């Protein structure tokens, strides 16, 4: 796939500066001020609010199959989720899921 070079560099620069400013925010700029409880409560869920929604369409309509739902990819996603959640193991989830993907693809020919 062809990506626009300027866009890539803008994203790299913007992500670098933005991420740094987020990390620098309190320790460098705002200092010793308590965050209101309701803000903390929402911040706790930012990652789990973005990542699952980003993945879901990629699992249900994978680009590699032209957007058609695919059994091997669904099975792999379920394995990744279950292993990751139950055993809290990122590597275990990844290995389990890729093995499932290859196994189901092999079984279905």
């Amino acid at each position: 796939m062809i990506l626009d070079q300027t866009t890539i560099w803008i994203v790299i620069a913007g992500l670098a500066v933005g991420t740094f400013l987020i990390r620098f925010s309190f320790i460098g700029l705002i200092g010793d001020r308590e965050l209101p409880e309701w803000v903390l409560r929402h911040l706790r869920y930012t990652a789990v609010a973005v990542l699952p929604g980003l993945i879901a369409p990629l699992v249900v309509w994978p680009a590699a199959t032209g957007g058609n739902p695919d059994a091997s990819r669904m099975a792999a996603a379920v394995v990744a989720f279950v292993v990751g959640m139950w055993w809290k193991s990122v590597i275990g989830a990844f290995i389990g899921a890729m093995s499932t993907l290859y196994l189901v693809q092999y079984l279905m020919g």
Partner: protein
Amino acid sequence: MTNQHPNPRAAYWSGFRTGAPFILVVAPFALLFGVVAQEAGLSILQLMSMTVLVIAGAAQLTALALLSEHAPTVIVLITSLAVNLRMAMYSAAMVPHLGKAKLSTRLWVSYFLVDQAFAVSILKYEETPDMALSEKLAFFFGAMSPVAPVWYAGTLAGALLGSQIPPEYSLDFAVPICFIAITGPMLRTPAHLVAAFVSVSVALLLAWIPYSLGLLVAAVLAMIAGAQTEVLLARRKA
């Protein structure tokens, strides 16, 4: 009582030993990011710039996934920065411990304020309240010392390796799998589960909206759902 004889050297190595096991988590993730970034069409210079300047794997993968879908630049940035918003919380939590360090030191702390460094440092500071500022800083940089080089080198290795892997290995699916693998362990409480469920459902329902705007709506609703569930559960317990 504060420590009369601060020993930053010992604190540095203590941090180093605490951070070292994270190599096992960071190395595969870095490799994977390298492979995926290379497959997405980034040059070595581009993907290494990203990995060195940003050091936040989940946000970097988010940016890649959205770039590949040709989402508008603003959406790519907003969404991937949203993944990093939790780090504002880390920054705030570090203020009572490292807030009195020199500005130049705090700049470096901010650059290295990643999940693993934050988690082990804050735990250490709470367990040993009599640490001197110099020891706290030494511990923090000690914890990052084994992790950061592995992150950079792993990305490079992944990028070089990625160009050798033929397409029949279905590596296209490594990105979603990697995301699910890192998200699973984050689902620690019922509130986190509710947030993830809302995020998935709304994102699928709104997938028809152009420019990946549906994802942003899903993320906002999921955050609110998580926070509200937390309040409800706390109230029921009280």
